[in-house]
């Protein structure tokens, strides 16, 4: 396989192709929409084509990206499949792409989930399909770009690029409170990212000479030297590196979302259409944690690992774990329950990252993947049952395991994987995080471990009330079970859940070098700064 990929120069064009394909497909759908015109009749007939083009584009995208699995060299943490072109030479901005093991897994997660998300919207999105699917495709380009960017300017552009399609997806095709949810999502994310922009500009100027330089490596070097400056605020001296770190951290913490920046998440997740929730939970939240791993920590290791900041983030992570779980437990709305469970899961990721051992970081990465798959699957299942009953209230169901046995089996299975039952994917990540974090933060890890129990409580209780209580409502007696399309969505997810649960080694091996490099770089950076301090 490797030889074949090399023979077609796969590494040289794949990243560009992955970025370009969704955008081209989006333009194609858009042109198709423009050609068939604006009258209602033609739109009705033509709108079927939009979803087909989108689905096949996503499938092709996934098939293309699978080559990365083989072409990727797991033995090194260096960037691979790199591609560097000048973009705006006057400003020192390059179109630089590249992936390491972490980015690889995130890209594969994205390309894996997108066709499923498109299939999940197959019948639930009725109006304006052309716009919907083009936005979905543009969103994909943005998300992949974030994971590939090796230039901070490009990264920022891609980071912001995701925002607009998601804003429209929530705002136009969302639930009842979509207007509120969409604007909240937009403004929250924007506040964080604009301060990051200031920090990026600052770093780029520092890294460059006559013209700024935004390439990741140059910025990395400049950031290492940035500890010298600083400002005095309210009588205390704050080093520049701390301010920069906080600017980056705010952007990522909103996205993760970390407690207490999480309040946009339940609104956005609940109001978004199914595909929107899947993408938000499955991929976009990971960008926050990915940002910590790729930018915030490696650029400012001394700031991030200074005792005050590190403890704050660890504590906030653990608060997120418990708070998310406890709030999830009392939600009457199943979608909101899953949304809060994301806060809890992502708390584990933050704990793993800031605990900074190879195991905990690898565990955090595993949770990022697993959460994407399990929570994505949960949102898809919620979407399926919502299409039938038009309610997400847990109380409205009860005992439907008898009417929709297949749905019940899948929901139970996916819930168990989300809880982290051994043998499913969820177990591997949480176990590794707890194991790794215990060495550096034993007390906090012990507290966080109770979150696993809470997770079992809220999810099992919820599926009991939905699936297994007595079938006391007549409306629930005639719900049709899953159809072929829905089964086709769930089968790949179930396969991946089992595969990652039983044999995660290939995935772990591909991330190992990068995770180790990350840990050693950050701890080395933190150590030198301690040595430098008077």
């Amino acid at each position, binding site marked *: 396989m490797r030889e074949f990929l090399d023979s077609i120069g796969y590494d040289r064009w794949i990243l560009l192709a992955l970025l370009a394909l969704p955008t081209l497909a989006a333009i194609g759908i858009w042109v198709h929409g423009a050609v068939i015109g604006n009258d209602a009749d033609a739109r009705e007939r033509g709108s079927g084509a939009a979803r087909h083009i989108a689905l096949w584009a996503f499938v092709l995208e996934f098939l293309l990206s699978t080559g990365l699995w083989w072409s990727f060299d797991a033995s090194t943490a260096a960037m691979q499949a790199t591609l560097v072109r000048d973009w705006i030479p006057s400003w020192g901005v390059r179109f630089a792409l590249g992936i390491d093991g972490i980015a690889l897994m995130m890209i594969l997660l994205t390309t894996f989930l997108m066709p499923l998300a498109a299939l999940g919207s197959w019948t639930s999105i009725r109006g304006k399909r052309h716009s919907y699917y083009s936005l979905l495709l543009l969103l994909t380009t943005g998300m992949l770009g974030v994971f590939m960017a090796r230039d901070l300017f490009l990264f920022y552009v891609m980071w*912001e690029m995701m925002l607009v399609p998601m804003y429209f997806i929530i*705002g136009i095709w969302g639930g009842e409170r979509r207007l509120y949810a969409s604007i909240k999502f937009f403004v929250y994310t924007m506040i964080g990212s604009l301060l990051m922009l200031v920090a990026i500009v600052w770093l780029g100027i520092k890294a460059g000479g006559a013209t700024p330089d935004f390439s990741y490596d140059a910025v990395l070097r400049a950031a290492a030297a940035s500890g010298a400056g600083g400002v005095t605020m309210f009588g205390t001296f704050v080093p520049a590196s701390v301010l920069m770190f906080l600017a980056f951290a705010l952007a990522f913490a909103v996205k993760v979302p970390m407690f207490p920046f999480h309040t946009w998440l339940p609104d956005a997740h609940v109001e978004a259409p199914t595909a929107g929730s899947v993408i938000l939970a499955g991929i976009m939240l990971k960008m926050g944690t990915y940002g910590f791993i790729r930018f915030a920590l490696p650029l400012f290791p001394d700031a991030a690992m200074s005792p005050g900041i590190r403890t704050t983030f660890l504590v906030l992570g653990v608060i997120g774990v418990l708070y998310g779980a406890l709030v999830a437990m009392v939600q009457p709305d199943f979608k909101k329950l899953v949304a809060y469970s994301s806060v809890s899961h992502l708390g584990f990721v933050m704990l793993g990252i800031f605990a900074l051992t190879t195991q905990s970081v690898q565990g955090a990465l595993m949770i990022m993947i697993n959460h994407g798959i399990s929570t994505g699957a949960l949102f898809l299942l919620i979407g399926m049952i919502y299409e039938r009953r038009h309610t997400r209230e847990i109380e409205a169901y009860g005992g439907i395991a008898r009417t929709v046995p297949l749905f019940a089996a899948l929901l139970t299975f996916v819930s168990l994987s989300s809880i982290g039952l051994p043998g499913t994917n969820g177990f591997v990540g949480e176990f590794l995080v707890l194991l790794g974090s215990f060495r550096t933060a034993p007390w906090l890890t012990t507290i966080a471990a109770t979150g696993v129990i809470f997770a079992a409580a809220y999810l099992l209780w919820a599926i009991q009330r939905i699936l297994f209580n007595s079938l006391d409502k007549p409306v629930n007696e005639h719900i049709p079970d899953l159809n072929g399309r829905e089964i086709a969505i769930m089968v790949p997810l179930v396969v991946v859940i089992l595969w990652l649960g039983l044999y995660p080694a290939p995935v772990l091996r591909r991330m190992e070098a990068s995770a180790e490099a990350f840990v050693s770089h950050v701890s080395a950076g933190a150590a030198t700064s301690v040595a430098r301090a008077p």
Partner: protein
Amino acid sequence: MNLDLSVPAQLSYALLPDLLLMGGALLLLLWAAWRPESARHQRSVGVACIALLVLTAAAIVWFMVRGVAAGFGPVAVDRFRWVVDLVLIVGTIGTIMLSMDYNEREGITAPEAHVLILLATAGMMLLAAARDLMVVFLGIETMSVAVYVLAGMNRRSIRAAEGALKYFLLGAFSTAFLLYGMALVYGATGDTHIATIGQRVVQYALLGSPLLVIGIALMLVGFGFKVAAVPFHMWAPDVYEGAPTPVTAYMAAAVKAAAFAAFLRVWYEAFPALFERWHTAFWWLAAITMIVGNVIALRQRNLKRLLAYSSIAHAGYLLVPLTVNTPGASEAFLFYALIYTIATFGAFAVVVALGDVGERSLRLDDYAGLWTLRPWLAVAMAIFMLALLGFPLFGGAGFFAKWYIIKAALDSPSPHTKLAVILVITSVISAGYYLEVVRVMFMRPRVAEERVPAPSRGLTKAVIAVSAVALIGFGIFPEQLVRLTRGGAPVSGLTLPTAQSAVPLPGAPAR
């Protein structure tokens, strides 16, 4: 090629584009009066005006390509001037195109309207060139008198008359401030040439001279009025609302850019030595303008007023490069001015397209559900709103414009981080109203009994399409535009009359 501006022929050559426009405009004025008023005559005069502007632009490009420079004199011959001129011409062409459609719809048949716009532009180009306070004043007056008339062009509208009167009175008032300030500066330094003023200030240690300080303060007030910086902005919303929409766009973009260009040149060249002293005043002016403009815009429900306050906020952003005085500041200013002009014209063109006779449909509610009715118009408006918000890709080059200003603020030994942070935070605030427009268009259903707007006219459509395409295009490939503004520092090409040019002018290339 280096011109000696003390020779009249060479001075005329340096003013060739301005003279071309001015002379052409006078001829067109005659032609406009030659025939009876009619919609057709109005249109043909408009077309001739655009042709003249294109000719002027060609002359400017010719000067740029040949790299004509000049020595000491009342006007500058440098890249800064040419780029500002191009920005102004882009805005003027947009204004005349919109006016042709608008005037036809509103039944304004006076063809002189277009020629007046040309005369105002000639004044603005003089402002961009001015290196002498007398020329600055000449430019400001030529521009203002024409724009006063334009604001009241629609004689049938009471609001237009009110706006025009307000604009005239307050404008005259502010000009008086400016003129008095210039007089005091002349009194203190004994010269009106701005480079000489800068030199004298240092030579005779005039930094503390009360005459000079009061003079500069009065000039600051005068310019503050012209660019509508808070707290001198009170006139703007009423005037913008009352004036015919194309003229509003013209005021919000071109008039502002021209006033800013003169503002920047006067401050950079005449008072570099005073910079430290005036820095704080500018800092606060910029910060307050950004904050007040954006916060008040949040509450506007009328689209023209919303855009008026947005233009005040943008005056605040434009004050940032003036304040920071870093090497890239004037380039950032030029870039921003161009992008802002394009986005503003696009947005106002949409307002023109949807406004009914008598400008009734200007409430935000009139835009509800526009997406289902006129998808292209809604998408274009969304692009303009996102561009003004400074959003990458979907807002096109709007992001690069804002980014350039942030870069200018941070790119110095002592970065203006606080100003940059205020800029980004106020940008987040501005999301509140720009996105509100987007939200109303895309996410609110159309009220069933609402009137369906008449189909938009050709030229309006053209302005909208060209603006949107230009924004997106430059949003992906900004390199050429960056190169255009490169080296546009207002002091390049400066040679001082005496041998000892002691003042280290900011932005001047190291000699």
